[in-house]
Every structure is written in C-alpha cells, then in structure tokens.
C-alpha cells in the first residue's frame, strides 16, 4: 500500500517535471527550425552580402539579399516608439509611485492594463486610418504609409510596459532612503529624481530594454501602416518595411517550401530572434539585480 503511494507520487513528480522541461524543448525547437532553414539560405546567399548589401529584393527578378534596409525600418519605427514610450512611461511611473494618492493609483493601473489588452491588429487599424490622416493635416508631405504613425502608435502601446515595470522597481526602494532625503529638506521631485530613480535604476533600465525588445518584435502595426517597401532611410515620412512586416508579406503569398524565397523569412526571423534574445536576457538580468538589492 505504502509502496504504491510512493510509486504514484514518483510518477506524478515525473510527469510534472516533463511539463516543466517542455519549455526548454520549445526553445530548442525554435532554434532548430531557424538554424535549419537559415543554413539552407546561407548555402545560396553569402553571409557578407546578407549583412552588407544595401538592397533587399528577394521577390524581384534581380535579387538582392541585404538585410540592412529591413533593419533600418525596424530601427526607425523602434526609435520613434521609444521616443514616445520612454519619457511618457517614466514620468507616469514616477507620478504613480511618488505622487498619486492610493485611490487614484487603484483606478488608473487597471485602466492602463486595458491598453495592453487591445490586440495589435486594432492598433494597426488606428495607425493607418486615424493617426496617419491626422498627421497629414500637420505634415502634408507625409505619405499614406510611413514610419512615423505606426512608430507613435507602437510607443503608446508600449507605455504600460515601461511604466508598470519601472513603477514596481521604484516601489521596491525602501522608505528609509526617501525619509533621509526629506529630513535634509528635499522636495518630492528632488527625492524622486535624486534618490528614487537612481536607486531603482536597474529596474527602470530593464523596463526600457523590454520596451525596445517589444517594439523590435512588433508586427501587425507596422505591417498595416508602415508600407511594404524595404528602404535604407531614416526619413520617417516615407513607406518602409520592417523585418517582421517582411515575414508577413511573404507568408501572405503562396511561397512553396524549400525555395530561396521561403528561406528568406527564416533568415530574417533568425536575425530578429538573435536581437530580441540578447535584449530579453539583458533585461532579465537587470530586473533580477534590482530584486536582489532590496528584497
């Protein structure tokens, strides 16, 4: 009787362990699929061309495979998004953590969560059919597809990520540090800027990096509103294409498996994975540091 219970306990623990291990197999699966197809891609295209050619025209008859124009598009939309999300997110985090009365916080935080719950395809619609026409009133030379409008909308989408993680880390700063500064006659703003923000720095940095990683990987907003024209430019007013939007563009067509065109999306995906992976690990380590300091 006792033996059978012990056997059952063992079996359950084994099954639970396998479930936990499953997540490792997902990562291995992602890497295996990307490496396999990317390897096939680099058998036909030189890695030097891939990284240095300034044209990306795999779907044309004269083919060029330079990833730079796609990354330029990704960089441009991400930069615009972060110009919106960083200041607004950080100021809002300082406000919520240091200034806002508890009642206001309790109302605003769930409302900001709604912002994060809206599907990205909806933000794409909003960028293309509301924000772009609005901006065209101010900037008449703005093209119907551009980097500016989806960049701004992505920034707003990312505000809750930046503000909520930053606020958590400010919240973890011990009260004693603030009280010390107040005792020296500092105002609330001085306490926030010179004590709380520096003490919570690693957590704030983690939230910034997570925001960047989110913007780099964002797909639908840019696929809908930024256009599908790979272009090596920093001009936010003209159509561009990001790495993610290119993958969508090819997936919408009927590209047979095993062709070079089919493999390009895995090569593009591989570059995307490497970049976001590095950003995520950095953010994870920074966030872990702020937890260790004050726990």
């Amino acid at each position, binding site marked *: 009787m006792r033996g059978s219970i012990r056997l059952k306990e063992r079996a359950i623990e084994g099954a639970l362990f396998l479930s*936990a291990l499953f997540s490792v197999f997902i990562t291995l*699966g992602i890497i295996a699929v990307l490496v396999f197809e990317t390897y096939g891609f680099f058998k036909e295209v030189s890695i030097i061309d891939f990284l240095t050619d300034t044209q990306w025209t795999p779907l044309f008859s004269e083919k060029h495979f330079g990833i730079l124009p796609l990354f330029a598009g990704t960089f441009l939309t991400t930069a615009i998004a972060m110009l919106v999300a960083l200041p607004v997110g950080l*100021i809002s985090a300082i406000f919520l953590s240091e*200034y806002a009365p508890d009642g206001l916080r309790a109302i605003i935080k769930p409302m900001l969560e709604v*912002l994060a719950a809206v*599907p990205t395809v909806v933000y794409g619609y909003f960028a293309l059919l*509301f924000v772009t026409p609005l901006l065209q009133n101010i900037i008449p030379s703005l093209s119907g597809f551009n980097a500016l409008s989806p960049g701004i909308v992505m920034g707003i989408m990312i505000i809750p990520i930046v503000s909520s993680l930053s606020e958590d880390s400010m919240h973890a700063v011990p009260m004693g540090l603030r009280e010390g500064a107040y005792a020296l006659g500092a105002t609330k703003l001085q306490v926030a800027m010179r004590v709380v923000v520096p003490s919570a720095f690693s957590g704030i940095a983690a939230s910034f990096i997570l925001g960047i990683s989110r913007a780099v990987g964002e797909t639908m907003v840019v696929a809908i509103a930024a256009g599908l024209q790979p272009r090596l430019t920093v001009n936010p007013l003209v159509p561009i294409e990001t790495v993610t939007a290119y993958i969508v563009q090819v997936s919408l067509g009927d590209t047979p498996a095993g062709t070079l065109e089919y493999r390009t999306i895995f090569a593009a995906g591989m570059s995307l994975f490497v970049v*976001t992976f590095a950003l995520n690990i950095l953010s994870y380590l920074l966030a872990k540091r702020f937890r260790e300091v004050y726990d």
Partner: protein
Amino acid sequence: MTDMKRRMSKWADKSFFTVGLAATFVGLAVLFALMLDILSDGVGRLSLQFLTSFPSRHPEAAGVLSAWVGTVWVMAITGVIAFPIGIMAAIYLEEYAKKNYLTGFIEINIANLAGVPSIIYGLLGLGLFVRALALERSVLSGAATLAILVLPIIILSTREALKAIPSSIRDASYALGATRWQTIRHQVLPAALPGILTGTILAMSRAIGETAPLITIGALTYVAFLPASPVSSQFPFINLTGLFDAFTVLPIQIFNWVSRPQKGFSTNAAAAIIVLLAITFLMNAVAVWIRHRYQKKIRW
C-alpha cells in the same frame, strides 16, 4: 539666492504633479480616441447578417461567420493543449523543484520565451507543425502554435497564484500525514484556483488577438466555409475532423479588410474590431471579477 533656488524647486515640484498626471493620461486619452474612432466607423455595420455571413467581394454582403467560428475553434483547442502543460509545469517549478542549475535554466528559459516576438512562434509553427508534422494549414496547427505562445504566460501567472498560498496550509496538511501530491491536489490547488483561472483567462485573451503567428503558418485570409462540425448525428456523436480543416480567425479577417483600399472594407474591419474587442474585454472582465471575488472571500 538660496531663497530663490528654494522657490524654484518648490515650483518645479508643483508643476511636476501636472506633468505626471498628463503623462499618465496620455495613454488613456489615446485609448478613448481609439474606441471612439472604431465605434463611429463600425457600429453601423454591425447586424445579425454581419455575424452570419461569409466574407465576400462585396463589402456590404460580407460577414465574419467563418472568422468567429474559426476563433472559437482555435481558442478551444489552444486551451486544451496549453492549460494542462502550463499548470503542471508551474506546479513542478513552484512546489517540487530544488534550487539547482537545471531549475534556474528552466526559469530563465521561460522568462525569455515570454519575450520572444510572436511572429517567431509563427515560424516555429510553420517549420514544425505545418511542414515537419505535415498538419498543413489546419485548425490544429494554429492552435498548437498559439498554445506554445501562451504557455510561458500561463506558467508565470500560475506560479504567482501558487506563491500566494501561505506555507502554513502545506505544513498543516503534511502534519496530518498527507503526501506531497495529496497536499497539492486537495489543499494548494483548490485555494490557488481563482488565481490560476484569472491568469489563464488573461493569457487566452492575449491569444485571441494574435494575428502574426497565424498569418505566418499560412492561415487563409479568404475562407468561405466552416470546419466540420464537432457534433455528429451518428455514434459517437463527436466529430474531430474539423481539427484538420483550413480556417481563418477574426484578427486575420480584420487585417485582410484593413489592407483593402475600398472604404466599404475598412468599415467592415471596424465592425469586426468591435466584435473582437467585445470578446477580449469580456474575457478580461471575467478574469478581474474572479480575482476580485475570491480575494475578498479568502483571508489567511
């Protein structure tokens, strides 16, 4: 001079309150504008006909029938795959795992997976389910892809729910002679259930809006049929061949309509967005309601 400086910093302090309030409300103002824009564009198009028609070349005749039925199919199968694995993994990590390198590795791996762009999961689904396992562009391929996508979120939120159960509950159960699994099964899980449900519903509400991974695995954008019905008139009354049928989902239908230049289709897109947002917000509201209700009830 110092007096002046002090007055300056007092003033800066006061004005920061306004700046901070404004920054916090930027997001909410945009959310409000977005809702208003979509409602004014799309609400006139909502009708029973819109919900019960297939897509069409003529915008005024088109509807979201195949899209919402596809969404229901994919979500149901996603849940069936992701819930058990996610909850079991969380139980292992929270209740069994010893602090060692392997556990640490699994944890950092899950944290990283939660940050992988969703389109990468689409490439995994394309390479693994669609091609290698030859499931083609089926409901099953789509659901398996989304299940993998939400798995890290389910694991992380379930762990939080388990963490919230005080260890005195476990100790009391052990003191009565219960084994570890008996303790989890009869004490920890029932107490953590509302938290687990809240987290998983939120994870599903994220999956329901996912577009990019399903486009990547090749879900069709024009579908004028439904997967085979799961109910059959003959024994055993269940028919699962629908799993292997092609499908589309609401977000893909929206994307398809947004991409067309004619005005009629963007109106359809707005109407379909209202349907999608209604489902998403309903799921969120249910999750918040469960959390609220049980937080009040249980006091340790």
